[in-house]
C-alpha cells in the first residue's frame, strides 16, 4: 500500500516533467523558423490563419513613461490596425543590453536605438538583421523616408540593414544638443559672472566648493555621469572639438592628438582639487541628475531635452533656482569650439532583427505609419488638438496637450519623411524652457561662432570600425576615468594610445583617411 502511493506520486511527477518537456519543444522549433520564413517570405505573406494581424513587439529607447500607455500608441493602433507591445532599453549600459537581446535572439520585430552606427552595422555584419531592400517596393512610403546618406551608411553590398534617422542641421551648422548647466542664482550670490574661459570656470568651481547651498550638505562643485568624460564644448577649449579634426590634410582622431592629454590633465586637476565629484566614476545618468537637481552639485552636463523634467524637479526642491548654460569655454591657448555634425550621424536608428516572425507585417506596419497624414498624426498630433498652423505654414504646439501627448512621439517614428524638420521645429517649441535652452545653443550668435562642424561629416560605415568601435570606446572611457580619478598618470596616455592603435584604432584611422583621400 505504502509503496503504491509513493509510486503513483512519482509517476505523477514524471508525467508533469515530460509534459513540461513537450511544452518546451515547439519553442525550440520556433527559433529555427525565422530563417525558413525569411527564405519564403517574399512569396507568401505570413498571415495568421484567420487573417488577423499579429501583435508586433517593438524595442524602444529609454523614456520616463510607458510607451504602451502613451497616447501615440493608441493612434498608431488605430491607423495601422496592429497592436504593438512596446518594451524599452535601460538608461545605462544600453549597448550591453542590446547585445544581450540580439545574442539571445529575443523575438523583437522592430528595434529602435539611439547610438553608434558601428554597433548596428556589427549586427548586420554578423547576419543578425533583415535586409530591407527586397521589401522597399511594397513599402513605397518607407522608400521615401530613407535618405541617400542613410542608405549609403547602412548598406553592405546590395543589402540595406537599418533605417537611419538623421541628425537635424540648420544654416549649414550641426545641432548643438548638450551643454554644461550651472546655477545663475549661486553665481549672483557669489558676485560672479557666467564663466567664458577655463580659468574663470575653475575660479567659479572653487567658489562653489565653499558655497552654502542652504541644505546643510556640502557642495560638489561639478559632477558628471560616469559614462561621459569627453564633453565637446570643453574639449574645444583644448583645440579638439570633434572626434576627427583635420591637421595637415589628414584626419586625426582626438585619441591620438597630443591635446587630448591637456584636456585630461585639466579634468584630473579639477578632480584632485576636489572640484569634480569624487564619485563621478560610479555615477549613473540618474545620479548626476539627482545631485544637480537637489542642489548638491553646482555644474552638470545635460541635453536641452532634459530641461522640462529638470526644471519641474528643481521648482520643487530648489525654488530659487535660475539656470545658466555654459555651452563652450575659451581655453588657455584661446581655442574654443563645439563639435557638431552636418548631414551626418543619426539620432535614431531602427532595424528589424532576423528573429522577427512577422517581417511582412512589420513593413506593412511601417509603411502605413509613413503615409503623409499618419506620419503627421504620429509626430505632431491632430490639428486643433495638438498643434495649429499659422499663415506661413509653420506649426505651433498647443500647450500643454502637445507636451503631454506628443513629447515622446519621435521615438515611435520608424523612418522620417522629408518634411520632418518642419515638424521638428514644432516639437522643439513644445516646452518654453526647452525651447529657450535650444535657442541659446543654436541661435545665439556667440555660440554659433564656435560651432565647429566635423570634417568627417557624412562618413559612411566601415567594416573594421564597425567591428571594433564599441570595445575601443569602452577602452578609452576606462582609461580616461583611470587617469582623471585614479592612480594612472596623464603620461600613461601615450602607452595607452599604442594599445588603442593595436586594438583596432589604426585600422579605423586608415579607413577614415582612405575615405578622406578618395573624397578630395
Amino acid at each position: 500500500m505504502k509503496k503504491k502511493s509513493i509510486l503513483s506520486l512519482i509517476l505523477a511527477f514524471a508525467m508533469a516533467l515530460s509534459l513540461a518537456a513537450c511544452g518546451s519543444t515547439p519553442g525550440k522549433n520556433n527559433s529555427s523558423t525565422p530563417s525558413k520564413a525569411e527564405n519564403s517570405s517574399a512569396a507568401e505573406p505570413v498571415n495568421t490563419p484567420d487573417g488577423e494581424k499579429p501583435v508586433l513587439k517593438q524595442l524602444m529607447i529609454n523614456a520616463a513613461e510607458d510607451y504602451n500607455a502613451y497616447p501615440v500608441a493608441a493612434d498608431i493602433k488605430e491607423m495601422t490596425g496592429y497592436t504593438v507591445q512596446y518594451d524599452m532599453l535601460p538608461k545605462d549600459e544600453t549597448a550591453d543590453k542590446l547585445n544581450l537581446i540580439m545574442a539571445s535572439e529575443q523575438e523583437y520585430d522592430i528595434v529602435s536605438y539611439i547610438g553608434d552606427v558601428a554597433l548596428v552595422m556589427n549586427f548586420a555584419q554578423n547576419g543578425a538583421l533583415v535586409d530591407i531592400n527586397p521589401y522597399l517596393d511594397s513599402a513605397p512610403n518607407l522608400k521615401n523616408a530613407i535618405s541617400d546618406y542613410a542608405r549609403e551608411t547602412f548598406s553592405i553590398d546590395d543589402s540595406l540593414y537599418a533605417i537611419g534617422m538623421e541628425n537635424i542641421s540648420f544654416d549649414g551648422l550641426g545641432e548643438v544638443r548638450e551643454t554644461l548647466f550651472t546655477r545663475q542664482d549661486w553665481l549672483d550670490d557669489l558676485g560672479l559672472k557666467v564663466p567664458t574661459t577655463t580659468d574663470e570656470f575653475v575660479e567659479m568651481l572653487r567658489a562653489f566648493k565653499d558655497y552654502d547651498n542652504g541644505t546643510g550638505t556640502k557642495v560638489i562643485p561639478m559632477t558628471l555621469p560616469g559614462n561621459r568624460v569627453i564633453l565637446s564644448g570643453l574639449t574645444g577649449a583644448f583645440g579638439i572639438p570633434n572626434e576627427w579634426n583635420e591637421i595637415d590634410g589628414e584626419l586625426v582622431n582626438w585619441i591620438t592628438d597630443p591635446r587630448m592629454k591637456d584636456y585630461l590633465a585639466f579634468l584630473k586637476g579639477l578632480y584632485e582639487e576636489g572640484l569634480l565629484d569624487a564619485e563621478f566614476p560610479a555615477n549613473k545618468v540618474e545620479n548626476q541628475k539627482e545631485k544637480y537637481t537637489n542642489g548638491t552639485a553646482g555644474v552638470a552636463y545635460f541635453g536641452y531635452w532634459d530641461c522640462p523634467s529638470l526644471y519641474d524637479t528643481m521648482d520643487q526642491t530648489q525654488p530659487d533656482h535660475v539656470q545658466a548654460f555654459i555651452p563652450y569655454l575659451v581655453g588657455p591657448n584661446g581655442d574654443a569650439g563645439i563639435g557638431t555634425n552636418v548631414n551626418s550621424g543619426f539620432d535614431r536608428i531602427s532595424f528589424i532583427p532576423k528573429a522577427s516572425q512577422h517581417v511582412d507585417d512589420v513593413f506593412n506596419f511601417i509603411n502605413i505609419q509613413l503615409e503623409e497624414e499618419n506620419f503627421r498624426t504620429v509626430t505632431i498630433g491632430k490639428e486643433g488638438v495638438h498643434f495649429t498652423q499659422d499663415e506661413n505654414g509653420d506649426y505651433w504646439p498647443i500647450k500643454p496637450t502637445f507636451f503631454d501627448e506628443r513629447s515622446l512621439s519621435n521615438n515611435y517614428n520608424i523612418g522620417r519623411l522629408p518634411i520632418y524638420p518642419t515638424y521638428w521645429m514644432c516639437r522643439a517649441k513644445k516646452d518654453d524652457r526647452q525651447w529657450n535652452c535650444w535657442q541659446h545653443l543654436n541661435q545665439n550668435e556667440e555660440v554659433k561662432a564656435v560651432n565647429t562642424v566635423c570634417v568627417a561629416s557624412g562618413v559612411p560605415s566601415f567594416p573594421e570600425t564597425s567591428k571594433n568601435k564599441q570595445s575601443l570606446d569602452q577602452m578609452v572611457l576606462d582609461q580616461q576615468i583611470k587617469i582623471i580619478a585614479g592612480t594612472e598618470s596623464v603620461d600613461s596616455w601615450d602607452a595607452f594610445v599604442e594599445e588603442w592603435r593595436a586594438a583596432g584604432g589604426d585600422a579605423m584611422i586608415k579607413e577614415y583617411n582612405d575615405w578622406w583621400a578618395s573624397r578630395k
Partner: protein
Amino acid sequence: MVSRKSFWYRVRKHWDMYLMLIPALAFLILFKYLPMWGIRIAFQDFNIFDPNGSEWVGFLNFQKLFASKDFLTVLRNTLIISFAKILILFPMGVIVALILNEVHSLWYKKTVQTIIYIPHFFSWIVVAGIFTSILSTTNGLLNQLIELLGGEAVNFITPAWFRSVIVFSAGWKEVGWNAIVFIAAIAGVGQEMYEAARIDGAGRLRQIWSITLPSIMPTIILMFILRIGSIMNAGTEQILAMYNPVVYNVGDVIGTYVYRIGLGKMDYSFSTAVGLFESLVGFLLVMTGNWLSRRTVGSSIW
C-alpha cells in the same frame, strides 16, 4: 563482480528510493551536464548569430588568455579577494554560531539570529547602494562621523580601500547566514557530553574547545571544502555592483572580466575560455581540499 551484483541487489531492494532519485538526476543532467555543450565555444571563433558556422580555433583563446596582461591582474585580484573572504569570513560564521550558542535567553538568541541573517536576502544591488551612500565622500554617514571627530574625509572606492570594502560588505551580508549551518550542527551535539564535562569541572571555554568544536568539525570541513571550490568566484555580482574603472586594477575579478569582455565586447569565445579556466581551477581545488582533509583529519566529502 561481487560489488556489481550487490549494487543491483540494492537497487532491487530499495527500488522506490532509487526511483525518487530520478528527478534529481534529471535536474543535474538538464541544467548541469547539457549546458556543458557550450564549452565548445571556448575552442571556436564563435559567432553568436551563426553558431554552427563558427570556426574551430583550438587553444587559441587560451593562448590569448595566458598572454594577455589583464589576465595576471584579474587572477591576482580573484585570489586575494577570495582568500581574504575565506580567511576572515569563514571563521566568523563559526564564531558567531559558537557565541550565539552560549546565549541562554532563547528569545534574544532567535532575534539576533534573525536580524543577522536577514541581509542575506537583500540583493547585491541594494547592499551596494547602502554601502555606497554610507561611504560617500560628500555627505556619507561614515565620512561625516570621521569629520566630526576631526579626521579627513576618505574616498573608499579607491584602489587603497576597495578590497576592504568588498570583504567587509560581504561579511555584513553573509556571516549570519553562514552561521546557520553551524548553529544547526551545534544543536545536534549530545547534552550528556556537556553534563559529563561540567561534572569534571570544565569551564565554558573548555567545553567549546573540547566538545562543541570537535563535534561540529565534520560540518566545518564539509563547508570548507565546498567553499574552497568556489575560490575562483570572488563575488562577481557584488563587485559588479560596486566597482568602476578607477578600481579595476584591484577589484576586477574573473567573473567581472568575463562579463565585460563577453557582453561589452561580444567576445564570447574568449570569455568562455576564461570561465572554463576558472571552473577547472575550482575543480582541482575541491579535489585537493578533499584529499588533504582525508589525509589529515580523516574526514572528507567522498
